[in-house]
């Protein structure tokens, strides 16, 4: 201790001559920093109500509630997060995990209330003065709390697949499937979009848990066509997937396939269990496609005797006769059908109703009849020359390929159409061309521009890989035939625009941009229709119709109380819709039976 220790403290006096450090107006002069995690904001237009913010909140601070003016719609639950500031800790995990980036934070931080109940508020709905704050916390671009990239599906290389009808897609390995399933946030937005309302988040969880048996049980609750839908479902659920906003949607379809791939057929049968005791009721189903067989499966499990009349030699409908083997191998389809027949469903093959057996007879012999005949007639453009014998319809050709009929592949050909059927026939014929001629010369012309193709993007990508020459925005005008009557190709005009303001078809052509695409064969793949001639004139007149299709109620029942109808023939083409319809019809028929029992 020295004299210095006595004097040194007095240096503090120098602060007398210093400017004060006090903030003059701390209430207004201190905005939060640019990254400040202040009060929440929510962009109502971007929010999809997936509730992931609620899931991650460790404080249970977030509730998902409906708000007026935001109806539920596909891909948007209509719910919006309400935050309890009696729970929040401003950690911003909700902002980080937000699938759409709608939830952010302002840099505002002052909020005083006497009434504590006012601290529950719905950002974006309850107007706050910080709603338009420019500064505040936003998610860092790199930071993803859920992985955005889909696990690539392993598939055959174009060179390896192109010469044969071997299935292209390998299916996920267990590790790959787990990784893909891990990406799911289990919000359940997809369920409403799936026509069959499959328990998608639950079966994806089964994949995560490796509990494939539970997965199979969940699949069969809503869909007996797991092999089929696991491969060729139109997977519109993936359009509603919350992960879509963050990156790729979850590969829901592939995960479904993965589940069914993991469980042996005998185990599947064991998991489904035996059908109920016979009820004595008889049901006739016309058409062994997805709709008919789904209903057959459901009804058979309830103990009803089901007979399915199928015009072709094998079951599956369009899934067999329309979808090429490289997308859906026949043995996979056979597995699904085997489970259905194992429930006691009797399928009568090569029985064409209307020809081999009359509708009236079905009406009198069975307690209920279901019509699920699909769309097996191809539409024609009816442009000049379209009646030439080398102008063919895609569905007819595909059917021939399936039945194994010998098809002389033309050396060059043109396909009209931009849907999946067009891709199917183009790729199938390309395979035949390669087998028969050693080279591929297939031109595909579509009305739509590439952005609006009806076909699945993957189909387009794979078609291009398989050397299909895809020309978009071409309107077919005539099939060109030379004087000797030989088909030379297809004449098209450039399509300037395809849709009107209401997004309805209204093609505008540029007649000056005319092309002739060379082809010994022209295949029309522009659309299909149902062949309802089996109904006969009398029944056709009796039935109520709705714009060309049999009129049905929400349960699939027609105006005739003994007849139900479902699937493509009443709803248009879509396998998962057909399955959903099949369920509805089965429930309806069964409840009618129950009512009949109750009365008698």
């Amino acid at each position, binding site marked *: 201790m020295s004299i210095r220790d006595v004097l040194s403290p007095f240096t503090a006096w120098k602060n007398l001559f210093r400017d*004060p*450090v*006090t*903030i003059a107006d*701390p*209430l207004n002069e*201190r905005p939060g920093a640019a990254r400040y995690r202040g*009060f929440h904001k929510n962009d109502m237009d971007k929010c999809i109500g997936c509730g992931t913010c609620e899931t991650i909140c*460790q*404080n*249970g*601070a977030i509730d998902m509630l409906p708000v007026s003016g935001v109806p539920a719609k596909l891909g948007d639950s209509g719910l919006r997060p309400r935050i*309890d*500031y*009696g*729970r*929040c*800790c*401003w950690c911003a995990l909700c902002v980080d995990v937000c699938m759409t980036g709608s939830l952010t934070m302002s840099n505002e*931080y*002052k*909020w*005083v*209330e*006497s009434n*504590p109940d006012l*601290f529950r508020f719905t950002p974006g709905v309850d107007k706050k003065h910080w709603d338009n704050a420019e500064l505040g916390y936003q998610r860092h671009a790199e930071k993803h709390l859920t992985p955005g990239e889909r696990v690539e599906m392993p598939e055959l290389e174009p060179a390896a697949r192109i010469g044969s009808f071997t299935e292209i897609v390998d299916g996920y390995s267990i590790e790959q499937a787990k990784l893909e399933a891990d990406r799911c946030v289990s919000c359940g937005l997809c369920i409403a979009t799936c026509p069959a309302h499959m328990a998608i988040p639950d079966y994806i969880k089964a994949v995560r848990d490796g509990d494939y048996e539970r997965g199979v049980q969940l699949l069969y609750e809503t869909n007996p066509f797991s092999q089929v839908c696991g491969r060729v479902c139109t997977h519109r659920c993936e359009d509603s997937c919350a992960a879509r906003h963050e990156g790729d949607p979850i590969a829901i379809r592939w995960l479904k396939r993965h589940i069914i791939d993991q469980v042996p057929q005998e185990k599947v049968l064991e998991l489904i269990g035996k059908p109920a005791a016979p009820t004595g009721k008889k049901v006739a189903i016309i058409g062994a496609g997805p709709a008919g067989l789904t209903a057959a499966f459901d009804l058979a499990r309830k103990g009803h005797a089901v007979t399915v009349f199928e015009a072709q030699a094998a079951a599956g409908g369009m899934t067999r006769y329309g979808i090429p083997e490289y997308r859906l191998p026949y043995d996979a389809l056979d597995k699904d059908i085997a489970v259905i027949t194992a429930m006691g469903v009797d399928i009568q093959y090569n029985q064409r109703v209307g020809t081999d057996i009359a509708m009236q007879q079905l009406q009198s012999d069975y307690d209920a009849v279901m019509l699920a005949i699909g769309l097996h007639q191809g539409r024609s453009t009816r442009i000049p020359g379209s009646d030439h014998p080398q102008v063919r319809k895609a569905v007819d050709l595909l059917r021939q390929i399936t039945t194994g009929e010998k098809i002389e592949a033309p050396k060059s050909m043109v396909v009209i159409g931009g849907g999946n059927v067009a891709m199917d026939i183009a790729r199938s014929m390309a395979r035949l061309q390669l087998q028969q001629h050693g080279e591929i010369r297939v031109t595909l012309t579509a009305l739509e521009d590439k952005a609006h193709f009806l076909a699945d993007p993957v189909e387009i990508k794979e078609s291009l890989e398989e050397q299909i020459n895809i020309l978009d925005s071409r309107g077919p005008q005539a099939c060109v035939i030379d004087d000797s009557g030989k088909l030379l190709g297809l004449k098209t005009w450039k399509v300037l625009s395809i849709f009107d303001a209401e997004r309805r078809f209204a093609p505008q052509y540029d007649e000056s941009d005319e092309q002739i695409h060379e082809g010994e064969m022209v295949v029309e793949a522009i659309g299909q229709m149902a062949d309802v001639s089996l109904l006969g004139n009398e029944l056709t007149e009796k039935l109520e119709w709705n714009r060309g299709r049999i009129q049905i109620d929400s349960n699939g029942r027609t105006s005739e109380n003994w007849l139900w109808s479902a699937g493509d023939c009443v709803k248009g083409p879509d396998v998962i819709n057909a399955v959903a319809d099949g369920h509805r019809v089965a429930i309806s028929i069964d409840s009618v039976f129950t009512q009949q029992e109750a009365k008698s």
Partner: protein
Amino acid sequence: MKEELLKRMVKGPDGVEFEVEPLRDYYCEAGPTVQTPAYTAIIEKLFNWARSESIWILGFGTGCGAIEMRPLMTPRFDAYRYGIQWRPTPRQANLFVISGYLSTKTLKRVIRSYEQMQSPKYVVGLGSCTINGGMYWDSYNTIKRLDDYLPVDLYIAGCMPRPEALLAGFEDLKKLIRAGKAEGANQYAENFEWYKANQKSVIHDWDMPDYNW
């Protein structure tokens, strides 16, 4: 119950033995009473103005939020210029800032401190924890709603609220006081039984008198 709180015989310095029963002998068991304005409206207004301009905070940082009171006591934010200061003892304080979560163990001390404060007195709850449990909503050891146990005049949102937010809260409290709406102490007296029952339902070792000012 702690040994020193038990009824026992004590020998005084003069050698005389006598019995003490601390809980009865050392505390007053009379409950709080409602204070009605005893003056004319204009005087009451003047008093309220005076009260609002002398907010004396009990220096008892009950939880995390206390750390943001320190900047207020120091030059940068300098709450003293607003008539706000911190006091070391409840007897000199009229505002209790509950700075966040309250463990049941602290709640017991908070109740004692609050009851020792002189009326009119005010309570401000800081942050989520005082409103609805905050991030300790599922904890076995913290209360979830401060207003179950003490009358709360104001809440300030945040976890934790910044010094500026606290100042905003104190400014709002002044307005309440001036408007004659900060009636927490009277509310406590009026609903004393209810508060006491709530307090006792979570403080399992209640070893103090019901009211001990």
